């Protein structure tokens, strides 16, 4: 890959990140805190600047959750502060620091994965490849549900589905296909 191609890819990475985060944040703030789209837009932009400042100050060096989760939590904290209209006792810096949020515990995941003979490194790599190559809209739905912990309704609003039931049905199909593909690959690997 040439330097130009690499730079173009970097730009797309950033652009796609903010495009996805913006869609998600507007939906989450509206659904969870009843904040208008206009005010949610302001919060999104303010949170972007806060994120930029924190990265420049090196505050994300010890981050244990994903950047997306961290950024969403900043927006939610700002949203709560906005809703409380300055009556909140939490300071601005506390609002940014209170972002180490992680829904799925690593200990619980490892406890399940370690049962029986556990998964081999090859099997783990196979799953990584499957997850990385999920087709649309499975990637969006599963990432949103398991990665961002969005509700079915929120996922429907972000992705543009008809409603929560449509998302639930599609999620179930996506997980079934993921499991089938994983099982099929493991069987062919050991045949």
């Amino acid at each position, binding site marked *: 890959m040439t330097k130009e191609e690499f730079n173009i890819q*970097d*730009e797309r*990475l*950033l*652009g796609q*990140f*903010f495009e996805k985060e913006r869609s998600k944040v507007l939906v989450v703030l509206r659904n969870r805190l009843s904040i208008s789209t206009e005010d949610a837009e*302001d919060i999104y*932009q*303010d949170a*972007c*600047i*806060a*994120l*930029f*400042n924190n*990265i420049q100050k090196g505050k*994300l060096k010890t*981050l244990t959750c*994903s*950047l*997306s*989760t*961290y950024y969403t939590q900043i927006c939610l904290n700002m949203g709560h*502060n*906005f809703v409380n*209209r*300055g009556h909140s006792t939490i300071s*601005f810096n506390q609002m940014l620091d209170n972002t180490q949020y992680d*829904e*799925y*515990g*690593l*200990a*619980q*995941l490892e*406890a*399940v*994965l370690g*049962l*029986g003979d*556990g*998964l081999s490194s090859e*099997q*783990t790599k196979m*799953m*990584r490849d*499957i*997850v*990385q190559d999920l087709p649309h809209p499975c990637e969006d739905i*599963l*990432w949103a549900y*398991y*990665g961002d912990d969005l509700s079915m309704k929120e996922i429907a609003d972000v992705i543009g589905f008809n409603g929560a039931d449509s998302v639930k049905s599609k999620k*179930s199909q996506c*997980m079934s296909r*993921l*499991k089938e593909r*994983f*099982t099929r690959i493991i069987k062919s690997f050991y045949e």
Partner: protein
Amino acid sequence: MNNLENFDTRLELFLKNKMTEEEGKAFLSELQSNPDLRQRAQTMAAAIKNMKELRYEHGQGVASQIESLSEREFRKEAKLSHKARIISLHAFVKISIAACFIGIISIGTYRYYIYNETIALGNSYYSEIPTELVVRDADDVSAQLAQLFKNVKNNEDLDNTILNLEEKFCLAISEDFNDYTNYINDIGWNLAIAHLKDGDREKAIETLELLISHSESDIIVEKCKKLISDIKQL
């Protein structure tokens, strides 16, 4: 809900650490004794774990990119349409001190400008920006501001009105959202006009310049720039 859906729900509760210790142990024991359920659980756990890891790595890449950008480049990448209100704490303190000094030093300012022309300019520009007060909440804040704006319009009790408006303008332009944030344009504009009617062109210009730097309205910014230009021509 069928048995498999029920199992998936229980698995998610376990993975999110929402079971009691006893429930968790019982769940793991069930998986240990049932190979089919164990395989189903391990497939889901592996998928979730890899999603988390990939999402984390992706975020690290994005953060590295952001780290290499200037603020201007970052704003372009994030498509930020206007200057966000958040500023560094240091800048906030400086602006707050500057805004408060405007209030503190305005009393006793030496009026060496052409008094009547200054007041006339204030009168002529008063009606250019219609206040949005009537469409907002009918609460104490609105009532207070309505009285202050009325004082400016009628040239009544200008000294106290200016002090009041300066205090509220200080709050309106501050970093934290408060009762006056949404009235920044009305307060800033009326304060600038009040200074003009008080014969103080310098304070009017300072107020207008602060309003330009904080207002999100292109119309207000243009009006402020025009008024500054007219003041300087007096």
